[in-house]
């Protein structure tokens, strides 16, 4: 399983960055990216997203 951000929905607001216990999410001028090496798949970022842009995908 991995956690992914739908960049079309994402507004770069930073809620997920504030919530992430691993500092695995990085925000820049254009995109928000999850560092899959740091991510522990805790999924706490999913409900924090105001636009529902974060989801988990199997595989």
């Amino acid at each position: 399983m991995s956690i992914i951000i739908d960049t079309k929905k994402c507004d770069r607001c930073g809620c997920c960055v504030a919530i992430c216990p691993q500092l695995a999410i990085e925000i820049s001028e254009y995109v928000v990216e999850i560092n899959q090496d740091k991510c522990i798949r805790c999924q706490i970022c999913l409900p924090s997203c105001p636009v529902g842009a974060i989801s988990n995908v199997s595989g």
Partner: protein
Amino acid sequence: MFQDNLIYDVAIIGGGPAGLTTAFKCAQAGLKTVVLERDREIGVPVRCAEGIMNKVLEQFGDIPETVIASKIEKIIILPPNKIPITINKVNQGVILNRELFDKFLAKKALDAGTKILLRYDVTNANYDDKEELFYLQVRNKSNLIKAKVLVGADGVDSIVGRWFGLSKQLNLADIDSCAQYLLYDDNIVDGECSFIFDNTFAPGGYIWIFPKGNKTANVGLGVNPKRAEKSAKEYLDEYIEVNFPKANSLRFTCGGIPVRQTNQTLVKNRVMLVGDSAYQANAISGGGIDTAISAGFLCGSSIASAFSTKGINDKKLLTYEQKWHSQNKHKEKIEQIIQTKISHSTNDKLDKYFDIIRDVSLEELNVLNIFKFLIMKRPALFAKLSTKAFFEFLK
């Protein structure tokens, strides 16, 4: 334009109200000050409902008219039972045009001597003990920025606080997940600000309608992600479909409001935090501009007082934290308790709370004041609070 060998006295990460106010105070005292902003424009995007108290604005002297979108003339609180509580003759706050307000603050800071660097996205920061300098790495830039004091004014998703161990990640209960449209609709009444509490539409939070003139208003909501079953945007879309079916949207933004704030570390060695990054937003109203500016003034003054020809006096940097906590400790604690109550209440409970404060005339436009009354009427609600804190608060 940019000298890479320069050593700044103060580097501030984030060009919002907290960072710009801090910069203004530092530069005014003659310190070499730089603001590093990730985005390409000051004041954009607007992640804010834009309400602010007049008394905070007055600290800046003359404010250009364009900065203010609309005056708040009336406040309506709508509990779940839809029996409104109306506060008239408020006249103590305004709705801002944040994109212009932030630029106004930027000009203030620039006139005082600050340098503002846009599209400077700081990706790493290290402190060199021997040289007593921070080295900041900037995305797509080869030169490092050097500074003696580092200020994190980098918002709710602050990375500065976590890099240097001033803060940890927020828990789900500690953040409100928010979405907002700038709506254009015939049903918007200018000057009438509404706060709507209803767990069906905004579980654990509330809906706000802040008019900005010419039939436009910020219509948004915050939900507690622990209670919410879908995203803030989905809740907001449902609310708008029912209540403003014909409205058009001129803007959409979203964001998080920190609702945890007691005893936050604000100064550690030569790193300071200010504004949302220090969780200084009002936990009940979610308002953060007022507190960001007050904290910016305090933080900037402390930094200015710490610099002398002998170097940096670290004890004086700490006065920012001491003063902030002594001014806000009880207020923050009570805001926290009330916020927890609201965010856990059912609609029936909310109706009961609001019935207690019905028909109160309030001298000051302030959500906190409304709840002061609540505390006086029902102190048992706040049993967790020490008696001392309780009386301090009522003063």
